[in-house]
């Protein structure tokens, strides 16, 4: 099998395993663990098998994904990737084994393993990324799966909060990483890692170097929990311990380190790199170590210790020395082994005793000697005790610290601070061991401690063995892999180094021993006081609690966002509408002004007719009157609006638009009836009662603003209208319609021909609107419930009926019937005449003013008049109309009329027009558009009758309901 197959299999297997695990039943513990273990080991085997190939050069496999962006799935296994992949998979396999026994029987373990495998896949994706963007993709995926894993015990509030915090901070880094990578891609011209790695000089000399560097480091530092972004890591410890061990100590946090190593050849060896990375590493190392000292929780101690060690590695990378990079890689591996084993040990202690609080634990040596031994070895490795792996890399670190003392005064402190941090490490390692395993026998623990099952200890044994093996014979164990990794980073420029245990007495050894001694001394001096520190937080940094600040910041962010949203937005309709008009005004005005001064009118204008001016005086007065009266005198306002509408119609007549006049008049009538139907259900409003005694100044000011806005919009629209009308008309499409209407479409009324033929598609849409509105109105009114104060029947009717009751010779309702007696007779007999008018408007509309819509509205008015004269009940006993069906028929008729031309191979809505020669009658024009227009009529009648009748029926319904209610009230009283 080719190497690429192994590579692809290694990358793909974890994801497949993840899906498979997700499908397992919740209690399939063993199956899930077995699956996870097999998948991880198989993947490890695949990677392992490629070792020989990798020593020769990277194995690359490419899958196109977004070729236009130069982004694909490129698996690229070189030495560095190999080392990290093995680390990820090997520790992964051990964690799986451990987790199998750690997780309780109640836990739905398949979910855990599913997420864990997905995480393994994502991590491998980072490590194997041969494309910068692909790296970003998997980078964010690790954040996501980490989130899911931290939140595994989601009932636990700490788990939820920890998961969110981790995701927020690491996702922020990921977003920065994306931008940073894109900048690198811009500089290099490719996202391909091999190309990028060959372009170090171009990158470092680019003006975009600094932004790219800062952005990429944002990602690396957040992911690797570097100060001040480290705050998420301790909180991530709310995850189950195997997860903490794996993600938040051994692997995921190393993604940041990996990224810095990966791009070290192209980004490092500049001052910016030195100061940013170095400072971050130093600060993190010290803060982490200092904080670790004061933890009472085992996992807390390990978490801060992890932070400190990550700082150490980062500091190494920041030193701009290839040798330091090698040390960093080495320490990364070492840290992973001893820290994972320590976490597992802590987990066992927690598992077997029920607590992780070092103040309650003591003397566990007796109960679990085996575990205690393992933990002690691992802790010694962490403390840098000779003959263990931690010692080797720690010594390399100290040696680099000494070698890289620069000229800057701050740089002089490097060895000192490095030693201090090492001493702190010794201190907390010692405390960990001493407090947990030694001292008096434990009492009052939640569980009686004993050794865990054999298999749970095995992973620790393996890891501790590794610590010892590497510590004893580094060249036989880690040596070759480290070399391959270093070669992958530096190529031919790989520095010489020596992994020997003994380098003779040198400065590094002295510092190392000093740190050991210092740590022990510090513990002896302060151990008791540290244990008695009740708060658990570190001295000096007590008040600087990152988690608290983060939560505060998040809460503040949400509150601030809400405030800003309120300040920049508007929830009140009036404010929204004001904004709308103002913006439109500004937009229109600025466009006009930008277009230059208006040209002098050059067209002959129609002379001013005084009658027309007077007409508009009436119109204006009606409009202003309506605006003024609409609040307290709604009926007047309706009347005046009617007047304004009439002036509009007259204007249409005057200015050669008879169709518009007819339609506007009809619509005007129906609208008035509609408004009045609605008025019935609105609250009574009386100026004397409602108007506030003294209007506030703010209200007055708002009204003034509104007045200004209204006047400005009016002026604007008037100005635009005048400007356009005084300009010569463009030679547009109008002429063609006038010329083609009769010869090509067989109609003399060009407007109607436009509506039913040239632009019949508009009309189809228009009637759809009408139908939709009818349906909506119907739906709303079916559920309509009036406000309490409108429920009662109108005052007038109650009074009239009371009067009827008072008269012996009158029946209830006589007054109402008598009042409508004459109108009812007239209106009944008008019905057929209106029908004929509608027929006329419909049939002659093609040649004269009218058309389907006007006809439909006229018919509607005929119906509504009957309703007004006789009441809903009377009409519905006689005329059974099903308006909704009419809407449907209208749509279908219009649609079918439009589609029939398909049969003749013509496009939709193609109209046919012909003169039919009929004996006796002579030549008769036949236009198929009439069929279309028939659909319009039917729909218009259906929709408008539906709206009016649905509204009108409310009174009927309410009256009936009110009567029923009254009856029931009487019943309850009796």
């Amino acid at each position: 099998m080719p190497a690429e197959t192994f590579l692809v299999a290694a990358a793909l297997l974890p994801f497949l395993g993840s899906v498979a695990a997700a499908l397992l039943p919740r209690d399939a513990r063993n199956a899930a663990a077995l699956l996870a273990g097999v998948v991880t080991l198989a993947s490890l085997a695949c990677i392992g098998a490629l070792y020989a190939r990798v020593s020769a050069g990277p194995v690359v496999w490419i899958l196109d994904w977004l070729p236009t962006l130069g982004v694909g799935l490129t698996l690229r296994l070189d030495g560095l990737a190999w080392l990290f992949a093995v680390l990820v998979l090997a520790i992964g396999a051990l964690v799986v084994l451990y987790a199998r026994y750690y997780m309780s029987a109640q836990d739905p373990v398949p979910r855990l393993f599913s997420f864990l495998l997905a995480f393994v896949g994502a991590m491998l994706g980072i490590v194997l990324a041969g494309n910068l963007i692909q790296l970003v993709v998997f980078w964010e995926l690790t954040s996501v799966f980490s989130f899911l894993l931290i939140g595994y015990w989601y009932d636990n509030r700490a788990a939820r909060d920890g998961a969110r915090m981790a995701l927020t901070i690491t996702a922020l880094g990921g977003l920065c990483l994306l931008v940073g990578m894109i900048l690198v891609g811009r500089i290099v011209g490719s996202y391909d890692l091999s190309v990028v790695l060959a372009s170090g000089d171009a990158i470092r000399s680019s003006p975009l170097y600094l932004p790219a560097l800062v952005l990429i480091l944002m990602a690396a530092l957040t992911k690797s929990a570097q100060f001040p972004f480290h705050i998420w890591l301790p909180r991530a410890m709310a995850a189950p311990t195997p997860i903490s061990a794996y993600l938040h100590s051994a692997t995921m946090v190393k993604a940041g380190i990996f990224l810095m190593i990966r791009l070290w050849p192209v980004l490092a060896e500049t001052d910016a790199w030195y100061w940013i990375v170095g400072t971050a590493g130093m600060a993190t190392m010290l803060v982490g170590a200092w904080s670790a000292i004061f933890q009472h929780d085992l996992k807390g101690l390990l978490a801060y210790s992890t932070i400190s060690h990550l700082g150490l590695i980062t500091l190494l990378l920041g030193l701009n020395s290839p040798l330091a990079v090698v040390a960093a890689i080495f320490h990364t591996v070492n840290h992973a082994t001893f820290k994972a084993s320590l976490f597992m040990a802590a987990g066992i202690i927690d598992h077997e005793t029920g607590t992780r609080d070092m103040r309650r634990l003591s003397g566990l040596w007796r109960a679990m000697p085996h575990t205690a031994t393992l933990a002690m070895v691992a802790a010694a490795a962490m403390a840098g005790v000779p003959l263990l792996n931690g010692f080797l890399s720690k010594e390399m670190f100290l040696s680099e610290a000494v070698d890289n003392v620069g000229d800057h005064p701050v740089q002089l402190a490097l060895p000192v601070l490095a030693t201090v941090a090492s001493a702190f490490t010794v201190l907390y390692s010692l405390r960990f061991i001493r407090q947990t395993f030694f001292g008096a026998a434990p009492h009052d623990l939640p569980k009686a401690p004993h050794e865990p099952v054999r298999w749970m200890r095995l992973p620790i044994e393996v890891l501790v063995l590794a610590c010892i093996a590497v510590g004893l014979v580094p060249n036989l164990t880690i040596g070759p892999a480290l070399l391959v990794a270093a070669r992958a980073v530096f190529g031919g420029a790989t520095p010489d180094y020596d992994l020997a245990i003994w380098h003779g007495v040198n400065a590094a050894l002295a510092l190392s021993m000093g740190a050991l001694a210092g740590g022990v001394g510090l513990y002896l001096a302060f151990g008791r006081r540290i244990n008695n520190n009740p708060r658990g937080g570190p001295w000096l940094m007590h008040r600087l609690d990152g988690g608290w600040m983060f939560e505060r910041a998040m809460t503040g962010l949400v509150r601030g966002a809400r405030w800003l949203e309120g300040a920049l937005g508007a929830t009140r309709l009036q404010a929204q509408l004001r904004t709308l008009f103002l913006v439109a005004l500004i937009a229109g005005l600025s466009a006009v002004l930008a277009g230059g001064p208006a040209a002098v009118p050059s067209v002959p204008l129609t002379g001013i007719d005084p009658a027309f001016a007077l007409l508009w005086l009436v119109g204006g007065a009606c409009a202003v009157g309506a605006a003024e009266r609409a609040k307290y005198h709604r009926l007047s306002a309706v009347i005046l609006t009617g007047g304004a509408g009439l002036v509009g119609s007259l204007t249409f007549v005057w200015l050669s638009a008879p169709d518009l006049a007819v339609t506007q008049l009809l619509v005007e009538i129906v609208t008035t009836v509609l408004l009045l139907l609605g008025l019935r259900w609105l609250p009574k409003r009386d100026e004397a009662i409602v108007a506030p005694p003294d209007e506030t100044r703010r209200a007055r000011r708002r009204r003034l603003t509104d007045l200004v806005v209204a006047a400005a919009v009016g002026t604007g629209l008037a100005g635009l209208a005048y400007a356009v009308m005084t300009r010569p008309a463009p030679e547009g499409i109008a002429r063609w319609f006038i010329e083609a209407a009769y010869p090509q479409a067989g109609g003399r009324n060009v407007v109607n021909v436009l509506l039913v033929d040239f632009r019949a598609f508009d009309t189809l849409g228009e009637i759809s609107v009408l139908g939709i509105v009818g349906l909506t109105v119907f739906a709303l009114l079916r559920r309509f419930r009036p406000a309490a104060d409108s429920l009662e029947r109108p005052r007038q009717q109650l009074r009239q009926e009371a009067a009827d009751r008072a008269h012996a010779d009158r029946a209830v309702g006589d007054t109402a019937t008598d009042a409508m007696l004459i109108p009812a007779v007239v209106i009944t007999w008008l019905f057929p005449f209106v029908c004929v008018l509608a027929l006329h408007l419909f049939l002659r509309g093609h040649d004269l003013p009218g058309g389907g819509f006007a006809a439909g509205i006229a018919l509607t008015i005929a119906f509504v008049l009957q309703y007004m004269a006789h009441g809903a009940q009377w009409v519905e006993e006689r005329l059974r109309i099903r308006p909704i069906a009419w809407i449907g028929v209208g749509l279908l008729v219009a649609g079918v009329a439009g589609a029939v031309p398909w049969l003749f191979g013509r496009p939709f809505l193609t109209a046919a027009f012909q003169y039919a020669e009929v004996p006796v009658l002579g030549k008769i024009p036949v236009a198929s558009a009439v069929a279309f227009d028939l659909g319009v009529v039917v729909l218009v009648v259906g929709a408008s009758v539906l709206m009016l009748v649905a509204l009108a029926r409310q009174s009927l319904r309410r009256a009936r309901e009110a009567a029923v209610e009254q009856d029931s009230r009487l019943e309850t009283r009796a």
Partner: protein
Amino acid sequence: MSAATLLAWGLGLAQGMLVLAMALAAWRALRGPRAQDRVLGLDTVYLNGMLAIMVHGLRTGSGLAFEAALVVALLGFAATLALAKFLMQGEVIQ
């Protein structure tokens, strides 16, 4: 004086008078004082508007204004009827 001039001036004047009548009726609609006065005003505005439409048809010699006038004559009362009924019964359709 030609027929055209005569018609132009005479009918223009007639139309002016009708619009003036509209204006007076509109004044009543604006002033009230009672709602019935306003409705009456609107009814008169409609009436005179219709007549003005007819005279406009005469002025322009076009029969195309006829439909508009007919619509007012036959259906224009519906709006005022609705208003009157609203005053009388408190609702338009029972």
